[in-house]
């Protein structure tokens, strides 16, 4: 692989499902790159298409009603539509995944050690004893106390945070190049969240794996992400480095997300801010920019689909999908202290 080529190159990925209500476009032209060793956070609310994107990269979207378009190149292999045995070779060994709910993501009647050994044996036919040793080491690395004893325990014998560590150990067992973490902390207590994220961060530094972190929580992202992609209704609406997104956000939806984080360094708001309105039905999306119905800054250009391009001078990698001019954006997003960064959409539509 020549340098300069990203580890993973996703282009115009589209995933749609046929349902009783019609065709649901879950992922609508998603394009991004992932460099080796970097942490890319994919942020969005439920239904934004972030999980479907992650699953599709590993070929785990298996509904018979699903249709795929676009490409995802990984180290010379095309992932979308690849034959099963190719994908199987890659799953676990090259690209590994951590799921949201560790309670249900581990087989309840199989010992956790066996579940990890199973993956190791699948990809590297090493002797049993060796696989077991590696498993114990992995458990120690992720911070499971008394790993040598606990390797023979069942999942129900661990707490939620511990189970997630087991999943991390499982994911890293074959030294993948990419780790996809789908809402890894959502099912956990807030106090445990920080620990898990830190662990992921440390392990990333040790192993050099790239991480795709899928989450709805910008607070989680602030600590460990290098780059952020904000998704809304199946599209990436803004993409940039951590600093760019947090300090110079260009899309009204991002403003709303940032504004809805309660901040310790700002005065407490009167009421918990929220973005007014609801995300669109994915079977019936608005024409042009998907965010139009909720955006108070809508104007004449908006019925045209805004392309994901860089509009900010000096920030060529900072892309967004908003027709507004950059200086207008910088003004509109400033609000009084304690207010949300995105005004409620009033009778502007009337």
């Amino acid at each position, binding site marked *: 692989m020549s340098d300069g080529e990203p580890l993973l190159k996703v282009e115009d990925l589209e995933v749609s499902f046929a349902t009783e209500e019609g065709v649901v476009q879950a992922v609508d032209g998603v394009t991004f790159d992932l460099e080796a060793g970097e942490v890319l956070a994919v942020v969005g609310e439920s239904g934004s298409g972030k999980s479907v994107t992650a699953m599709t990269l590993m070929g785990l979207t298996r509904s018979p009603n699903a249709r795929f378009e676009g490409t995802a190149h990984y180290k010379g292999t095309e992932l979308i539509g690849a034959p099963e045995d190719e994908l199987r070779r890659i799953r676990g060994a090259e690209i590994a995944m951590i799921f949201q709910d560790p309670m249900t993501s581990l087989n309840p009647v199989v010992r956790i050690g066996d579940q990890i050994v199973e993956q190791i044996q699948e990809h590297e036919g090493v002797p049993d004893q060796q696989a077991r040793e590696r498993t114990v080491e992995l458990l120690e690395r992720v911070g499971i106390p008394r790993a040598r004893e606990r390797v023979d325990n069942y999942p129900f014998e661990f707490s939620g945070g511990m189970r997630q560590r087991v999943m991390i150990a499982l994911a890293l067992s074959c030294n993948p190049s990419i780790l996809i973490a789908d809402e890894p902390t959502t099912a956990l207590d807030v106090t445990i969240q920080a620990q898990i994220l830190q662990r992921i961060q440390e392990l990333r530094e040790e192993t050099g794996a790239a991480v795709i972190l899928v989450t709805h929580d910008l607070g989680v992202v602030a600590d460990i992400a290098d780059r952020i992609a904000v998704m809304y209704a199946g599209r990436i609406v803004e993409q940039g480095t951590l600093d760019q997104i947090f300090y110079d956000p260009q899309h009204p939806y991002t403003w709303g997300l940032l504004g809805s984080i309660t901040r310790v360094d700002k005065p407490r708001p009167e009421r918990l801010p929220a973005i007014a309105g609801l995300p669109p*039905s994915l079977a*019936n999306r608005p024409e042009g920019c998907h965010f139009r119905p909720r955006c108070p800054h809508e104007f004449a250009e908006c019925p045209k689909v805004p392309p994901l391009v860089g509009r900010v001078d000096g920030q060529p990698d900072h892309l967004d999908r908003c027709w507004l001019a950059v200086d207008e954006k910088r003004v509109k997003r400033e609000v009084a202290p304690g207010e949300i960064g995105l*005004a*409620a959409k009033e009778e502007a539509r009337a």
Partner: protein
Amino acid sequence: MATEPVSEQTALQRPAAWEEEADREQVHGLGPWRLGLRRLRRNKVALAFAALFVLLLAACLAAPLWADQVAKTGPNTNHLSDTIRVDGERKNVVALDGVPIGPQYLKADGKFFLGADPNGRDIMVRLLYGGRNSLMIGITAALITTFLSILLGTIAGYFRGAADVVIRNLLDIMWSFPVIILGVALGVALALGGIDIGPISIAPDSLAIPIGIIGLVYVPYMARPVRGQVMSLREKEFVEAARAQGAGPLRIMFTEVVPNLASTILVFFTLLIANAVLLEAALSFLGAGVQPPNPSWGSMIDEGVDRIATAPHLAIVPGVMLVLTVLSLNVFGDGVRDALDPRAKVRLEH
């Protein structure tokens, strides 16, 4: 540009705005019943079998019509020494060697359409009357089971405590008796003297006996799931809300709990009829159900099996009717269950 004044109220404070929003999105959620009905309508196979059942039911209910107008005989009338005219010839209904006449179809103006049994009785007439008995027993028994199950299950599930313990243990003990065994035991016990407990007095050859027995033996099978559902419904918010409004337990049970049981009950009811009809056939086959000379498909098969070598149609005909009836109920019940199942896997063209 100055910041736009932001209203104090977000959309959350103005419910009217939410509704406008929802209307604009044109998302019309269908209730589970309408959705289920629509799915059921699409299930052609289930509907076809439902029609078959209705047809069979109608035919059996029209038994007196057939008996009076076409066959001109009753279900229990012997014609051992009679003759009929077939294509101008005179034939014995029961030949001198004891072999009854075979199916005549329309050759004798509809008399002995399906032939005669060893006692010279018209099989078609007996078949239809027997079907009337079997179906009436099956449906009434299913109604009794449903009623008792709802009663016991709701009391046990809602009030818990002592009532639950008593009911649950009673059901468990009944459960220890295989359905046929319990049916047979009761059948034999009641066959000679009938019942005379307090106000209830039933003669031994009344159809109420098999109805009561079959209705009773299936109660544990339905009461248990009802109880389970009631227990979980009890914890739901809308019940709490009703309680907070001051509704008494009886009222809550009738207005909140029971309607939510409806889909479970509906599915069970269809399958209950199917099983009740089969059980009645088994009991009558053994002699512990419908007592002779009253016809029932089960007892007709019993009589037919004895002479299967010489007159196989005696056993085959009632059996086929039985299978068709039960099958149509099973297929339809299956279709209803699928239609009401929110997780049904629907395969759609894309």
